[in-house]
């Protein structure tokens, strides 16, 4: 279990998406169980931008093998994954 609250992490990610990606800015609501890729909020390059931000923010390193949909494709999955990395 990580040290940052899930709700705080969720807010951080949603804010980041809204501030950095036009598609996210125009949505009224970003659902935490919705695929970020399928919904068009973010593309594969955008995922990398998000990962870079999270690595810098929490001083963690994510392996290539961990860059897979079950870890990253929804906000819920991302939060669980980050918690498993000790965030």
């Amino acid at each position: 279990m990580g040290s940052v609250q899930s709700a705080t992490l969720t807010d951080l990610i949603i804010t980041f998406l809204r501030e950095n990606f036009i598609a996210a800015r125009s949505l009224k609501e970003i659902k935490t169980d919705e695929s970020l890729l399928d919904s068009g909020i973010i593309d594969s390059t955008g995922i990398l931008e998000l990962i870079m931000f999270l690595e810098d923010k929490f001083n963690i390193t994510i392996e290539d093998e961990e860059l897979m949909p079950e870890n990253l494709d929804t906000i819920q999955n991302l939060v669980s994954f980050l918690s498993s990395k000790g965030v």
Partner: protein
Amino acid sequence: MCGITGIYRVKSGEPVSKQELIPMTEALRHRGPDEYGYYINGNLGLGHSRLSIIDLSGGSQPVYNEDKSICVVFNGEIFNYIELRELLQTKGHRFYTSGDTETIVHAYEEFGADFVDHLNGQFAIALWDVKKRELILTRDRVGILPLYYSLLNDGTIIFASEMKGILASGLIHPEIDFAGVNQVFSLWVNIPPRTVFKGINELAPGKMLTISESGIKERRYWGYIFPGINEYEDKPLSYYTSRLEELIYDSVKLRLRADVTVASYLSGGLDSSIVSALVKKHHNRDLVTFSVGFSDEAFDERAWQMEMVNHIGTDHRMVNADYDSISASFSEVIFHAEKPMIRSAPAPLFILSRLVRENGIKVVLTGEGADEFFGGYNIFKEDMIRRFWARNPESVKRPKLLSALYPYVSRSGRGNAFWNSFFGKGLTDTGNPHYSHSIRWGNTSQVKRFFNDGLLDEGYDAASELEEYLSQDIMKWHPLCRAQYLEASLFLPGYLLSSQGDRMLMANSVEGRFPFLDHRVIEFAATIPPEYKIRGLNEKYILKKIYGGILPESISSRPKQPYRAPIARSFIDRDTIASSMFDGDTIRRYGYFNPESVELLLNKYRKNNGTSTGERNDMAIAGIVSMQLLHHHFIEKRSL
């Protein structure tokens, strides 16, 4: 603004005459066409060419203290002169003018050589202390205003706002310093005090020279300081936005102090849009704005400029830059810039300042500095991505983030392997203090291949001069701050504020003012945590947070477009002085470049219908034509 000159025969004691100062000062007439002033005190002489902006009728220079024991000539503006004057009056100083120059002499009387710490402004100052027979030369903190000096064999020091002022003295023979040229073709700029002319030194920003019979002392009175990588204060974003907004508001307010109309540049980017919007909102409902548009759509930003004009409502004037006008003006551009360059982008700004002057305006505000201090440049993001990649160098996914920054990486027919190799060079060398810039500098250095063998002294290594010039604390700082520091110490004063700034403005007697370069803004910006400057790849995040509300969404969310101008099509096969610099005879006569290599390069462009054949080749074209023009003006023609 103005131009200043001087001669101090400190060792020989021989008198200086006004006749010696006249050609030096008149060589700077473009900087100050309104009036000339001279001062002679035995073996010391000062000259001044004036552009009247504050205290139009009473601001003649030199200016003195009460008993004329201190004399100053000065180029620039002291924006806090009203507050400083009040402070000095409470301490008993009596003023005989209403302008800003006089605050310098009284501040010197009050604070000694530390007077400079009390100045909020942009300046190059020559101050003469009659009793001590001591000359002080100093320059503003970040290098907005220029100052050059030469030390002659007999101990005489001569100085001027531009190198052409020194050359006009006839005391220095114009001769190219190839180590200086080597620096420009590696780092894009010179490392002060070196210039591209032998025997002419640039006084570095933030430094002060004190010259007296006991010798010459140099000291740095101001420099960039960032917190240690783990030493940022734990404060919320709102603290930083609130304080920064106050500081920028005050900086703009101070920079509107003038007895003439102050207009604003409007490039269509974030920074000048913020400045213009602030002036319009808080200070001047009749704001005049200026911009440059390009016939070549790849460089044109007029759609965004007009969006801002319509959004805030300004009286806007635009000049169009095309290949012909860039080409036709480039000879004058190099005459004023006094150094070679690997870009053509100063030329449209030369054309723009001419438009400003034609409209009767003497002062413009611009957005310079925001990119350096709030993380606007792609080179900062490139550094972030390469470090992200370097954490797992074997990753095949991480380098793909480069395509978010440089779309050509994914569109290019060269494929990922090529770009991975290009950006992967030195990838894991993250302990290199110049990591952020090593690819750029390495790429630029390839242009040196066009020079004749042996000319640039291939054994010369700029690294040791660079190490000596830069702060020893750089590795204690966050990587973004290291990259910001390199940009602010080198590219900002050495190119942006000089070749592309002061020189292009003063060529048409226009003064630039730069609200983001107020030292209080810079010092506060240094304390802002890097994640509030660039968030993900979202540059200048904190500025967007503060000013998003007064800008159209299309401007505040627009990715930064680097300001560039067309190169090859402007210079190859046109009927201009610049284009004639490629003539085989001229290339051979001047002797800098290998004629066969130049011809091959030109033919490559001709076969490609004049369109770019790559970044390095574009840099080579601009570098060759500008180096040739430098020779044309200062060695061959001596057009002073």
